[in-house]
């Protein structure tokens, strides 16, 4: 058989040498140790003797050529059982190709949901999409979890800090409760209240065209996942009950009409919401329990003197519930102004994290879109929530028994039945409704 003799590195790192003189020619029969060729490196001229006996089969270079180290110099035809005398261990050829990429296969995890999706907040994560598609974050197993402390990388801590999110309140989806980037992003995009879910989400999600398919599946991620989590938590722990009533809107409609021009002069749009919100705050003064919060295990009830009233907004990324802080100290104008600003920000995707935190009660004006009654899900850890139906012109009996047209809006309160009973809820709603039906009564409390 023919064996190639590979030109070795004969001088500690040389890469090539010049063929000075061949001492054999093709066809020559040579003996082991016979001088085959003289080559020149930059350090020395050296003679290379044959490793085996045999017949010279081929010379790969001519005299004067530059030969490359680690490439064949000449071929010898020999009968000797010539192992190239390598010190390889025997199995080196076997395990090879199959195992070469073995870890890569192991490392491609099944794709779990993660919110590197565009639904996120302002921190640009779009760039990371490609990497995190191939390799999932969260592989590292922390040695221990320490109660009272969070497990989070510096990058994650930064995001939390920027959005004023308390990491202790975030549930980590990583190993040993490690908080991953998307856990924090979910909270950023979060605080969604229940009832408006289905319709809005359908409009929001860029529904790809699945016409013609019998069914299709998509991952639940981002704001939808956050909402799902929030709803489950609320419904699973809070025993909901609902109280409904109808409110006559005629007087408020007239009042709003007369105030509108004044507000517009100051560039503030006046909707009905500021009235509802201010009325709510006045009513809460008399029924503080509606503005309280129960702790996680239901052993302590905290009453808040501030009324941070949340209202659902159809924001750029989906449904959000920002709140106006300290409504008890704000005028109608203040409230209208803040709501105006907040809605703008939400629509532009510029809502700060602070606006979404610290709410004490929520209003969902689903009626603005449609519907009469609803069963709103309480925005945990709040205690109550009201869903407003649409205002309809309906026939009602006047005091004198005649039928007249009245503007009627249905309202639906859900309350935490652990701490609010039906009577309290109804009384509270009576008071609130009274402020809406007879708005001048609010003047009594004007400070």
């Amino acid at each position, binding site marked *: 058989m023919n064996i190639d003799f590979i030109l070795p590195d004969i001088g500690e790192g040389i890469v090539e040498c010049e063929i000075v003189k061949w001492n054999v020619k093709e066809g020559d029969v040579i003996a082991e140790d016979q001088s085959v060729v003289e080559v020149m490196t930059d350090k020395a001229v050296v003679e*290379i003797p044959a490793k085996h006996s045999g017949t010279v089969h081929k010379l790969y270079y001519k005299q004067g050529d530059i030969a490359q180290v680690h490439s064949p110099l000449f071929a010898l035809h020999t009968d000797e059982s010539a192992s190239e005398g390598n010190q390889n261990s025997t199995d080196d050829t076997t395990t090879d190709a199959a195992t070469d990429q073995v870890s890569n296969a192991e490392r491609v995890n099944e794709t779990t949901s993660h919110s590197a999706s565009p639904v996120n907040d302002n921190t640009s994560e779009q760039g990371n999409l490609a990497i995190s598609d191939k390799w999932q974050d969260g592989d590292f197993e922390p040695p221990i979890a320490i109660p009272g402390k969070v497990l989070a990388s510096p990058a994650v801590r930064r995001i939390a800090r920027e959005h004023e999110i308390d990491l202790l309140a975030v549930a980590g989806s990583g190993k040993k409760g490690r908080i991953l980037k998307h856990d924090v992003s979910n909270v950023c995009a979060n605080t969604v209240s229940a009832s408006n879910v289905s319709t809005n989400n359908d409009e929001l999600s860029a529904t790809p065209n699945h016409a013609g398919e019998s069914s299709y599946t998509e991952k639940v991620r981002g704001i939808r996942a956050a909402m799902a989590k929030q709803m489950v938590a609320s419904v699973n722990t809070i025993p909901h009950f609902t109280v409904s009533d109808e409110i006559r809107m005629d007087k408020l409609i007239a009042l709003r009409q007369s105030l509108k021009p004044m507000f517009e002069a100051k560039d503030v749009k006046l909707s009905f919401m500021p009235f509802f919100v201010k009325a709510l705050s006045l009513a809460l003064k008399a029924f503080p329990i509606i503005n309280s919060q129960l702790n996680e295990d239901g052993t302590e009830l905290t009453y808040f003197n501030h009324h941070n009233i949340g209202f659902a907004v159809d924001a750029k990324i989906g449904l959000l519930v920002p709140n106006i802080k300290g409504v008890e100290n704000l005028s109608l104008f203040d409230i209208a102004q803040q709501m105006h600003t907040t809605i703008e920000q939400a629509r532009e995707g510029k809502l700060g994290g602070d606006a979404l935190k610290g709410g004490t009660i929520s209003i969902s004006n689903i009626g603005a879109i449609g519907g009469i009654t609803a069963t709103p899900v309480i925005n945990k850890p709040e205690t109550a929530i009201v869903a407003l139906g649409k205002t309809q012109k309906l026939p009602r009996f006047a005091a004198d028994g005649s039928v007249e047209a009245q503007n009627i809006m249905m309202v639906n309160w859900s309350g935490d039945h652990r701490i609010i009973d039906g009577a309290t809820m109804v009384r509270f709603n009576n008071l609130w409704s009274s402020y809406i039906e007879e708005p001048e009564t609010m003047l009594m409390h004007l400070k």
Partner: protein
Amino acid sequence: MEDRNHLGKIKTTNRVEVIGNGLIDIPMLQLLKPDGSEHETAQLPEIDQTLALKIHDTMEYIRILDERMVAAQRQGRISFYLASTGEEAAAVASAAALSPNDMIMSQYREQGALAFRGYTTDQFMNQMFSNKADPNKGRQMPIHYGDKALNFMTISSPLGTQIPQASGYAYGQKMAGNDAITICYFGEGAASEGDFHAGVNMAAVLNCPVIFFCRNNGYAISTPSEEQFAGDGIASRGIGYGVKTIRVDGNDPLAVFAATQEARRIALAEMCPVLIEAMTYRLAAHSTSDDPTGYRSRDEEDKWRAKDPIARMANWLTHKGWFDEKQNKAKVDKARQDVLAALKVSETVPICGIEEIVEDVYDSVPWHLQDQLTSLKAHIKQYPKKYPKTSGSVR
């Protein structure tokens, strides 16, 4: 506390007296002429036929081994080799004058001493192929031999470091009352290192029974001795340090033997160092990375070929009637065959498993090396084709 007088026996002079170089004559001991015949006034050492033949045969063996391994390097079978061609007597004949308990601390061109002690061809080959039978476990380049049983300290590449180490080792032997000494080999180039000055001076001051054996072979790679020192060789330095000194013809096996014998006797009897400077010539290239045609002439080499120590010894043995030409040829042929056969066996023996990479850094493997080994093993398993020499055996 005693009064000291650091002036000692220094005389005073009243004229500026400049002491020049070479004031002291340090003659070179030679017992045999280059042709192997004895000088008339030579005082030969006591040496029997067995020992004399062993000296000759060992030199011959080393020459054969050197030749084979240089060729093996050219064939790409080993990465590096360093031959002692022309200097065989310096190492072999001096080792012959020692007792087996004496420690040998060498530089790198004294494989003759190791062979004389009884290092086998297989052992030479295993070290050179860095395989798993190598006592160094494949950690060092070829020719960095060491053997505990044969009292031959493992060689390290930095030059001259062994000199103060030999002083220390000998000091320990003295304190242990061993009746053993240390011999320390080095070239004239290495003697320029600070370690030479430090080691020889300390040996003198601390009374260490060590023989400092300098092979002055005329070259340190390409640097000839006139570019290495201006004084009278290395011998003059011994005198400067207060060390008893002998200069000897390094190519005269009997002279080297006699000088070393005497040096050993003095070292033990007086508990002091002795410096031997053996004048010889490096016929070989510095190593397989070197080509002497770049810095010296063929004529110069040929002059020294005429002083070949092996031929000199053979001739002397013949004069003594102790040498059989035919027998010798048979020995030489057999040695060549044995060497080649041993090479072919050694080159197929695999290298150590990867676990060895973290052993012997300390007496036990510390946690951080354990971690590094674990990661490395996992990585090797993942890319077996990249690491063919160990991937087959990694667990």
